[in-house]
C-alpha cells in the first residue's frame, strides 16, 4: 500500500502530532522570535532527539530506527502544522542522507549515531545564489598536499545557524552548471577559515550564510566519490523536497483549518461569514487543492522508500503542488481573516511568512514545473 500507513508509521504520526500540538504550538515560535532566539531552541531539539526523530532515516546498525521517508514525512507534516522551528530537515534528512548514501563505513560509524542522537546537528551547504540551482556551484576545492582547500560562499543554508557540522558541496572539477566535478566535504562549524553568519529571516526560523576562506580539509572529510557527488546529491535533495513538501502540507492544512474555524464563528451583516457562497466556494477550492497535494506528497514519500525510478518526477510534483497550495492558502488565510489577520498578534502572518520560505527552499513551484516538464520530455 502506498497511501495507508502501517502501525509503526501511524504511531509515529500520532506521537509527532501530539508533540507538536502540545509542546510546539505557534505561540512557541512566537516566543522564540520575541526572545530573539532566531529559531534556535536547544530544549526542543533535545526533546526531538529523545523521541528518536533525528534517527528516523538512520539505519538501526548506526543507532537509528531506519523507518524511512514515509515515517519522516509524518513528523515533518506535524511540525509544519505548528510551524515548529527545528533542525530536523537539515540534520535528520539532508545531512543524514548524504552520509548514509555516500559515506564510508568509518564515516557512517563516526557520524550517524551522533546525528541520530541529536548530539551533533548537521546542515547541507549547497546553494550559492538566491534561487535553488543544485549544479550552480562555484565553491572551489583545490587539491593540496594533505587534502583540499575550500574557498567560496554559501547562501541561506537551512539550519546553518544551528549546525555543528556542514556537508559542503564544492567543485573539485569543472565549472558552475556542470554535473561532473562536485564533491561532498564534511566541515565542522568551528573549522578555521569558515565564517557562519546567522540570518534573521522573515519566518523567524533562521538560516545562515557561509564563507569559506582557505578552509583546509583532509581526505577523510571527503564523503563519497570525488567529482561524483551529483547523483547522490539529487537523491538527497529529493528526500529533502519530499520532506519539505510534507511540512508545507502540514502548514497549509493547519492554516486552512484555522480559517475554516474563523468562517464558522465570525459574523458580519448578522451572518456567519462562512455562510456567504463566494467564500464557501473558495474554501471548497482550498480543500480540493489540499486533498490533491496530500495524494502527491504521500506518493512521493512512499516512492522514495520503495525506490521507484520516477522519484524525481514525483518529488517535483509534490513540491510544486505543496508550494502552490500553501501559497493559495496563506493568501486566503490572511484575506478571510480580514483586519485581524493583518495584525502581528494573530497567527495568520506566521503561516504566510513561513510559506514563502517553504516555497522557495529546494526549488519553488516554477523550478519544479520546469524539472517535471523536462522529465516528461517537453
Amino acid at each position, binding site marked *: 500500500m*502506498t497511501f495507508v500507513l502501517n502501525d509503526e508509521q501511524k504511531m509515529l504520526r500520532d506521537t509527532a502530532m501530539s508533540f507538536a500540538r502540545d509542546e510546539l504550538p505557534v505561540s512557541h515560535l512566537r516566543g522564540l522570535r520575541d526572545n530573539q532566539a532566531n529559531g534556535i531552541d536547544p530544549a526542543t531539539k533535545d526533546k526531538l532527539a529523545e523521541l528518536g526523530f533525528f534517527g528516523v532515516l538512520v539505519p538501526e546498525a548506526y543507532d537509528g530506527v531506519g523507518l524511512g521517508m514515509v515515517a519522516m514525512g509524518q513528523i515533518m507534516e506535524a511540525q509544519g502544522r505548528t510551524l515548529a522551528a527545528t533542525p530536523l530537515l537539515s540534520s535528520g534528512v539532508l545531512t543524514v542522507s548524504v552520509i548514509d548514501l555516500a559515506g564510508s563505513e568509518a564515516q557512517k560509524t563516526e557520524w550517524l549515531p551522533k546525528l541520530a542522537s541529536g548530539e551533533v546537528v548537521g546542515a547541507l551547504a549547497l546553494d550559492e545564489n538566491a534561487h535553488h540551482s543544485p549544479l550552480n556551484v562555484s565553491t572551489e576545492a583545490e587539491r593540496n598536499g594533505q587534502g583540499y582547500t575550500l574557498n567560496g560562499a554559501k547562501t541561506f543554508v537551512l539550519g546553518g545557524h544551528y549546525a555543528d557540522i556542514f556537508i559542503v558541496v564544492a567543485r573539485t572539477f569543472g565549472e558552475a552548471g556542470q554535473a561532473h566535478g562536485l564533491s561532498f566535504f564534511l566541515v565542522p562549524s568551528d573549522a578555521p577559515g569558515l565564517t557562519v553568519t546567522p540570518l534573521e529571516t522573515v519566518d523567524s526560523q533562521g538560516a545562515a550564510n557561509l564563507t569559506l576562506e582557505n578552509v583546509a580539509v583532509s581526505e577523510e572529510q571527503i564523503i563519497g566519490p570525488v567529482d561524483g557527488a551529483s547523483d547522490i546529491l539529487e537523491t538527497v535533495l529529493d528526500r529533502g523536497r519530499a520532506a519539505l513538501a510534507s511540512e508545507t502540507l502540514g502548514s497549509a492544512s493547519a492554516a486552512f483549518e484555522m480559517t475554516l474555524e474563523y468562517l464558522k464563528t465570525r459574523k458580519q451583516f448578522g451572518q456567519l461569514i*462562512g*455562510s456567504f457562497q463566494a467564500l464557501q466556494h473558495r474554501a471548497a477550492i482550498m480543500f*480540493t487543492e489540499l486533498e490533491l497535494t496530500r495524494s502527491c506528497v504521500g*506518493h512521493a514519500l512512499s516512492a522514495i522508500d520503495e525506490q521507484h525510478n520516477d522519484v524525481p518526477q514525483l518529488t517535483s*510534483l509534490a513540491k510544486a503542488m505543496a508550494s502552490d497550495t500553501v501559497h493559495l492558502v496563506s493568501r486566503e488565510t490572511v484575506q478571510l481573516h480580514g483586519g485581524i489577520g493583518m495584525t502581528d498578534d494573530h497567527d495568520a502572518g506566521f503561516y504566510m511568512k513561513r510559506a514563502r520560505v517553504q516555497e522557495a527552499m529546494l526549488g519553488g513551484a516554477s523550478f519544479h514545473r*520546469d524539472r517535471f*516538464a523536462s522529465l516528461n520530455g517537453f
Partner: protein
Amino acid sequence: RYPLASFGLWMFGPALLEFGNEEQKKKYIPQIVKGEIRWCQGYSEPGAGSDLAGLQTKCEDKGDHWLINGQKVWTSYADQADWIFCLVRTDSSVKHGGISFLVFDMASEGVETRPIKLISGSSPFCETFFDNVKVPKDQLVGELNGGWQIAKRLLQFERSSLSAGGLKSIGGSGMLTAQDYAKMNVGVDDQGRVADGDLRGRIAENMMHDRALSLTVRRMTEEAQAGQEVGHTASILKYVAAKSNQDRLELMIEALGSNGLGWAGESFTDDGLAATRAWLRSKGNSIEGGTSEVNLNVVAKRVLGLLEHQ
C-alpha cells in the same frame, strides 16, 4: 443493436431491487439482466437542471391510468430506447414530496423525441415530449409522491460513474497531447524544452493536476480497502476531473494553433479535428451529472460544515 446496458443494469436495476414491488421485479429484472430492453432516464427538464426537484412534468391520476404531460431534456439515447424510467410531479403543493417515479413504454402514444445537437456536434442526448401519455397504474415504482428518494439513489450511481477515468475517455485518450503539439508547432530549444516557456509552464501545471487527480483516486481506493472513510475525498473528484480535462483540452487547442481551429475537411488532420470536438464537448463536463457549482456547494456544506445564511 446497442444494448444501452448502463442505464438498465447499473442504475435502474439496483434501484428497482431496492424500491420496486415483487411483481415489478419479476417483470423487469430478467429483461434488464438479459439486456433485452433498452432503458433511458427521464430526469432533467428545461426548467429543472441543477434544481432537479423543480421538475414540472405533470402526472395525473385518471383512475385506471396515469396521464403524463410535459417535457424532459438530456434524455440520453431516448430516440433508441424502448422504455423510460421517469420522474414526474404528482403533487404540486410540495416540492420534493410531490415527485413520483414511473416506468413506461417509449412506444406509447404521445411520446416524441428529438435529438439534441451540441456545440461539438451530434450527441446521444434528446429532448423528450409527453403529450397526454397514458401509463398503466401498476407502473408506479415505490410510493406515490415517494420518487425523490429513488431519484437521489440513482444520482449517486450516476455521479460515481462519472469518475476521473470516465471523463478522460470523453476527451479521447490515446490522442496526441498538448505537449506533443507544443513541441511540433511551437518548437523546442537546444535542451528539448518547448520554446514558449509560458505555455510550457501551464501545460506542466495541468499535467501535475491531472497526475494529482489520478493519485487521489488511487489513495481513495487504498484507504477504502483499509476500511477508512473516504467520502470527503470522493466529493472533490468530479469537480477536479472536469476542470483538469477542460484545462487539458484548452491547452491542446492552444498548442495546436491554427491546426486546432478546424471543423471539418481534409485540410485538417483527423487528430486535430478530434481535438477540437473533444475540447468543445469537454465544456459539458462541469455541467452534466451535477454542475461544478453544485459540487463546490456540496463540499462546503457537507464536508466542511459551512452553513447557509440563517
